[in-house]
């Protein structure tokens, strides 16, 4: 039964792992957040975004960036446990 279970489920576990990694990458995409930070700054400098909107957005992006960097650091050091 073990061999059968292994053959039936291993490919799915592999796919779930890959999907999980992709989801984490997308959710905690440091480059995308950096781009968003630069865009926020640019639109503020060009007068399209008010100071209030700019500061509000900046705070949110910086918090997300901090979390994303932490997740990547833990990912890199193998400290993130995938629970199923």
């Amino acid at each position, binding site marked *: 039964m073990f061999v059968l279970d292994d053959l039936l489920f291993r490919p799915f576990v592999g796919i779930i792992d890959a999907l999980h990694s992709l989801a984490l990458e997308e959710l905690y995409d440091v480059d995308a957040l*950096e*781009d968003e930070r*630069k*865009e926020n700054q*640019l*639109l503020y*400098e*060009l007068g*399209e975004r008010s100071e209030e909107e700019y500061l509000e957005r900046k705070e949110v992006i910086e918090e997300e960036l901090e979390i994303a960097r932490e997740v990547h650091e833990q990912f890199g050091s193998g400290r993130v446990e995938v629970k199923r």
Partner: protein
Amino acid sequence: MSNSNRYVYGIVDSGDIEFETDAVAGADRVYTVSHRRLGAVVSNIDTTDPEETDEDAKRHDDVLREIMDYDGGRTIVPMQFGMAFESDRTLKNVLRGARPAFRRAMNDIEGRIELGLKLVTQEDASVDPEEIEAAVEDELGPLAAQTVTNDQFSDRLVLNKSYLVDEDDRAAFDDGVARIEDTYGDDLLVQYTGPFAPYSFVDVEIGAQSR
């Protein structure tokens, strides 16, 4: 903590520089540490790994601009934010080791400034990026000694370039940008910045082991 570390803004050719200013990490004086005819423009700092805050990044830029205007105008090979060294001795070793590279960079940027141009689509505007890029190239390309395309960090950025321009061509370049703004102002927001020390056109690598 000791303030014996040196934070470097850039490298100048001969002649000491010294002035009081609002410098990186709370320092209030900028001066040169020289080796033969090269001088590193520095301020004192208590770390070799400064944190890049918005305020200090701006101070770094502002100091570079002050140096460009110092004593009738000086050419400076700019360093990116964050270059700090343990002591005058390590810094002089770097100046000695990288002297040929600094000399080449100095020759490339002598009498030139960096100008930046970003073109951003107005909200909901529809433009042909290729047409705009070609028009900008026709207008500004001949006036620039070198051009660098920068990061496309937003879908709304149609163009993001830095230009190395002879100081003598500055007025003509300004006119060219004004014509671009006149032509495309209904569809595009224009951000024209500078002059900066030519960061984008200097490629001097200093190894971490030299710190």
